[in-house]
Every structure is written in C-alpha cells, then in structure tokens.
C-alpha cells in the first residue's frame, strides 16, 4: 500500500518535470504538442482510491495551467478524464474489469491500446474545446485535438515501454 502511494507521488513529479522541461518545448508544425503527463491518470492503479485520483488529477492539471498560462483548461480536462476513467475501463476491458488484475504498463494488447486511445482522445478534446472556447473554431479544435492525440499516444507508448518493470 505504502509503496504504491510512493510510486504514485514519484510518477506525478517525474511526469510533470518531463512534460515541462522536454515536451512543452516540442512542437510540431507550430501547434501540435504531445502531452504525455496524463499518463499519471492512465497508469493510476485500477482499484486505487478514487477521490485521491480526482484530487491528484486536479492538482496535476492546475500545475500545468500555472506553467502554460492556460487558465483552468488543463485542470478541467484532467478532472473529466479522471472521473470517467472507470467507464473507459468498462468499455475496453469488459464489465468485470474490477476483478481482473490489469497491469497497464506491460506489453501492448488491443485492450490496453484502446484504453489509452480513448483516454487521450477524451482529454484532448475537452482540453482544446475549452482552450478555444468558441464554437466557430470547431474544425480547428478537431484537427488540433486529433493530431496532438496521435503524438501523445506515441510518446505515451514510448514512455510505458521505457519504464516497464523488467521481468528477466
């Protein structure tokens, strides 16, 4: 129990640092920015404390907002993702997901990929919708969200493979 808490805190700080120092400076075509910091919400233990996750993801998004001058958009997007995470689990792993031992940071299977894909798309769509805040930019929002989602998923999968616990 204690070790999961510690590893979560460690992951929280590490992902934020990596996001702010490296990925915030990586922009493709001028507007696509990968946001792998949401990996914290994706990799949070399945049976972990839910209110803890909601509070932690609010803090995560809030710190990102402070650094990016974006008001409350990241905080809102992270909160939405944290709140509907169980439904995404149910969709990608089946109804009885709570009784399975799901380890997300492992070899990529279709279930795991669909979970990551859905989470990233939900987060990015909320984020870019709130960031533009005008329905007249809708097509622009859609393009930005989808292209950024592609890069976020790629960077997420790379990070998962890098931090995967070695079994040998």
């Amino acid at each position, binding site marked *: 129990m204690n070790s999961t808490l510690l590893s979560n805190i460690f992951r929280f700080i590490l992902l934020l640092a990596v996001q702010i120092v490296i990925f915030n400076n990586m922009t493709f075509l001028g507007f696509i920015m990968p946001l792998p910091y949401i990996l914290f919400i994706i990799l949070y233990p399945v049976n972990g404390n839910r209110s803890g996750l*909601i509070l932690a993801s609010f803090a995560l998004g809030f710190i990102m907002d*402070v*650094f990016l*001058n974006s*008001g*409350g958009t990241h*905080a809102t997007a992270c909160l939405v993702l944290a709140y509907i995470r169980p439904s995404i689990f149910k969709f990608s792993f089946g109804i009885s997901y709570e009784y399975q031992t799901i380890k997300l940071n492992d070899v990529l299977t279709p279930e795991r990929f669909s979970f990551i894909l859905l989470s990233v798309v939900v987060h990015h769509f909320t984020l870019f919708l709130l960031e*533009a*805040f005008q329905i007249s930019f809708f097509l622009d929002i859609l393009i930005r969200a989808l292209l950024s989602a592609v890069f976020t998923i790629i960077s997420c999968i790379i990070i998962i493979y890098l931090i995967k616990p070695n079994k040998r």
Partner: protein
Amino acid sequence: MQQIFNFIFKNSNRLLFLLLLCISFLLTIQSHSYHRSKVISSANFLSGGVYQQINDVSEYLNLRTENEALALENARLKSILFNKKDTSYLKKMDSIVGIPADDILVSKVIHNSYNVHENYLTLNSGSNDGVKQDMGVVNNLGIVGIIDNTSPKFATVVSILNIKSQINAKIKKSNHFGSLVWNGKSTGFVQLIDVPRLASVRKGDTIVTGGQSVIFPENINIGTIHKIYIDNKTNYYTLDIKLFNDMTNLGHVYIIKSKNREELNNLEKRNTNE
C-alpha cells in the same frame, strides 16, 4: 440529518468531482474574459524560477544567433551615430526614436508560447524593476505584446499572437488606422481589421503602431501587408500582415515605460466623470 450524511458519504466522489469541476471551470471562464488579471499565471515564484533555470541552459544553444542579432543592431546604431546629418535615414531605421533611454527596460523572454489561441510570454523582470500592467513590449524588429500580470521578479505578456489582443495600428505612408488582431491561424501573420475603403493599400506597405494608444509610442514597426481582403459584412478592408518579428524565436525585449500615461488616464477619467 442522517440521510443527508448518508447521501454525502455515498456520493462523495461525485460531489468532489463537481466541486473541483466548478472551480476549474470558473478559472477557465475567468481566463477567457476580456478583463485582465488572471488568478493564476506563470508570473510567480515557482514557474518563473523553473523557466529561468530552463532558459539558463537553453541560452547556450542560441548564443550564435543572439550574437549575430546583436552585431547587426550594433552596426545599425553605429551607422546612426556616424551619419547623424542623414535624418531621413535615421527616421526610417530607428523605430523607438523619441523615447528617453531611461524609459526603456531591457528584459529577457524566459518562456514563449505560440501554439494555442491565447499565447502568453514570461519575462524575467517584474515589479521590482518597475514593470507594471499595460506597458508595451517591443524588440529591435517590432512589437511583441503588452504586459499582463507581474510578480516581484517575473511578468507575463499578452503576445500579439493572442486572439484577445487588440492594438491600434496604421499604414505608415497614409495614416489610415485600424485594429491589429490575430485570427489564431499562422504564427507569422496577424490581421489589421477595420481599415476604411478610402485608404489606398498595396501589397508590401509597412504597418506601424498608431498614435491612438497610450501603450505604444507611434511608429513602431509591425510588419508588411501580405494580402488584402474586403470584408463582406462591413465593407472595410481586412489586411494580412506579415510580421517583421519571428514570434517563435524571441530573446531580449524592451519594455516601454510611458510617463505620460497616468496623466492621460487621469484626464480621460475626469472627462467621463463630468
């Protein structure tokens, strides 16, 4: 009473979610409103310090280009010094002429964003150096933005690449003015709207700041006309302006303190009160 507590315990997650959602939503809406001063901004001890550290490292990578820019500006200043009689040349090149040197503050951009619709910069000088809200920020090529929030050591700037920014600008040769806005599409171009149809505009004409705002002095370079549209709704021109500045690559900037602003503001306030 018991039932209320039961309800709260049963739905604690949902209530927590809704509470935090309200807070973050309020912050979002507040940041999108036109009235300034955000609750949270990167002009604070934590993020300003982190950006300063990152910038100290990345500064080394840009030393060559920074040196070249400084050498160019040096050459330009020297040519002004040596050809002092040649006033027409001076007028064309020196864009911040007419401002006393002690009203200009040199600062450095430590964080630059240009990939969202509302872009802000962070500078490494704050209220300790005399930076206040609504001061203009320029560099040797043209305008950069307007100071938004300040902390003792850092300040944030509303970039001209921000759909909320609106700056008075005019066509250099004819004095017809309009508002400089950004449509959120390309980082190299901004738009000058509400230019009257009487104005003779041609591709390649220079756009400079107008004299109507207290924030920027007159005749600071902005860019050249790239494309001309006629707005169907209003019958005004909308001009695409190609910026002199590369907003994705900013180093040192100058903050312009205007001493006359308070006087002007007081005067205008008195007029509205009467």
